[in-house]
């Protein structure tokens, strides 16, 4: 096995990086993949809360990197899927506890034992972002259908492209409401595509079940119902190399036009 390292990033905060990381991790694991999700947001950990694994943390990634535990001890097994693990981050440290070299070394150590390593990057384009980007084979840029989020994604895509390492970068459009696009309250998929000119791997519709699932620590991808859960599961299949066409949104139909299918 040689894992693919996927870094989930956005530039802007609050667009749904952590929710995306948790759900894609769950969706991939439910499809039989061996997955570890790494929380890259040192000092502000919340991936464990979204995953509902907060009270299982004994050691975290920083403990391992600094030699206080074995890697096995830091990997928290999520029993809701066959092979799903979380590598939490330290809450009492700052971003200097990790750097690009340490993160790359950590991922290289994990690679032989997993199919997918998902790295949840912090907001911003500073050191934490650089640290999480370093090991990435591919990047998923999460963007919301609003001007400021798209602008930040553009900046981040520019930074990813400027690195020597050649990476596949895809876009996830998160929290799209077909009704609001129709009323022209929201940027459409085409608007976003025009500015970012980056291939879209999935469109996650606005879904109220996300909020309650986040608070309960049960990612929607584990439940399997609802529009967002379906979207995450489809993105997971695309990440696994399946050819899954993008579905038109319920009250939209513009995706059909965009991709020329009837």
């Amino acid at each position, binding site marked *: 096995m040689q894992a693919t390292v996927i870094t989930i990033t956005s530039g802007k905060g609050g667009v749904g990086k952590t929710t995306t990381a948790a759900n894609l991790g769950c969706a991939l694991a439910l499809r039989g993949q061996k997955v570890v999700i790494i929380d890259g947001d040192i000092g502000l950990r919340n991936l464990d809360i979204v995953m509902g694994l907060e009270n299982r943390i004994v050691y975290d990634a920083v403990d391992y990197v600094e030699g206080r535990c074995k890697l096995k001890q830091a990997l928290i097994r999520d029993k809701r899927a066959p092979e799903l693990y979380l590598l939490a981050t330290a809450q009492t440290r700052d971003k200097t506890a990790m750097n690009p070299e340490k993160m790359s070394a950590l991922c290289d150590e994990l690679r032989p034992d997993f199919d997918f390593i998902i790295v949840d990057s912090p907001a911003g*384009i500073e050191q934490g972002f650089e640290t999480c980007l370093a090991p990435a084979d591919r990047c998923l840029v999460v963007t919301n259908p609003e001007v400021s989020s798209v*602008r*930040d994604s*553009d*900046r981040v*895509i*520019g*930074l990813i*492209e*400027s*690195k*020597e390492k*050649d990476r596949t970068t895809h876009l996830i459009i998160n929290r799209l409401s077909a009704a609001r696009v129709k009323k022209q309250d929201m940027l459409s998929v085409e608007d976003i595509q025009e*500015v970012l*000119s980056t291939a879209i791997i999935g469109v996650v519709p606005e879904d109220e079940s996300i909020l309650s699932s986040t608070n309960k620590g049960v990612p929607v991808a584990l439940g399997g119902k609802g529009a967002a859960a379906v979207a995450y599961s489809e993105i997971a299949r695309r990440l696994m190399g399946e050819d899954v066409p993008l579905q038109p949104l319920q009250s939209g139909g513009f995706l059909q036009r965009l991709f020329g299918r009837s």
Partner: protein
Amino acid sequence: MITIKGLRQGLLIILGEGAWHDTLRELEARLVNSANFFKGGLVALDVGAQSLAADDIERARMLLSSFEVRLGALITQDAGTAAAARSLGLGPTLPAPADPTPARRTAVAAVRATEGVEPAEAGLPATSVSEPLDGGTDGILARRRVRSGQVLRHPGHIVVIGDVNPGAQLIAGGDIIVWGKLQGSAHAGALGDTGAIVGALVMQPSTLRIADTQLIQTGKERRRDAGPRVARVNADGIEITIWQEK
């Protein structure tokens, strides 16, 4: 006499001979006149054979930084000056920019598109040699999309084949031509040339300046018919007209 050239990594300012005090005065005048051209830039100073102490170099650095210009390198033929520069952490070459053009592009485009592109972030490895472009300062061709936060700066002309996204910046001493959609900000003639032009297939700049004149936008521009446009300075300010040969 001060000469400004474009480097891959930033700008090269070649200072003339003469008393250091006068040279700095002249440099200051250039910085004052073209503040927007230099602002945020990274420069290498070529001081020729002048013998300078660390204090002299530090004064130049302070002067530049007061215009938000970073001194990244000092080029000298004098061994004592080179030692003084090293004591301030200044080598003879600018740090290389992160390559914004991955290998998947064509070779010609890859070479050209890196010219004049500034590093988005500081602290990049110092490996590349800072040599002026062939043939001096005619211009650069960037064959790619210029994204938010990216700056193309050149004392000559800038040609972009691709879109210039909102939040991107083009700053040229000469003309700016965008074979694509211009939505970022553009400043042509940034070293004072009021005859410079800005041309774009789709002209929707967030801000547009030519020399010292700023385009006043009424908000109606964005609804104008699509099609190539050219911006020039006339007596009333900047005028944007349909692109056609005269």
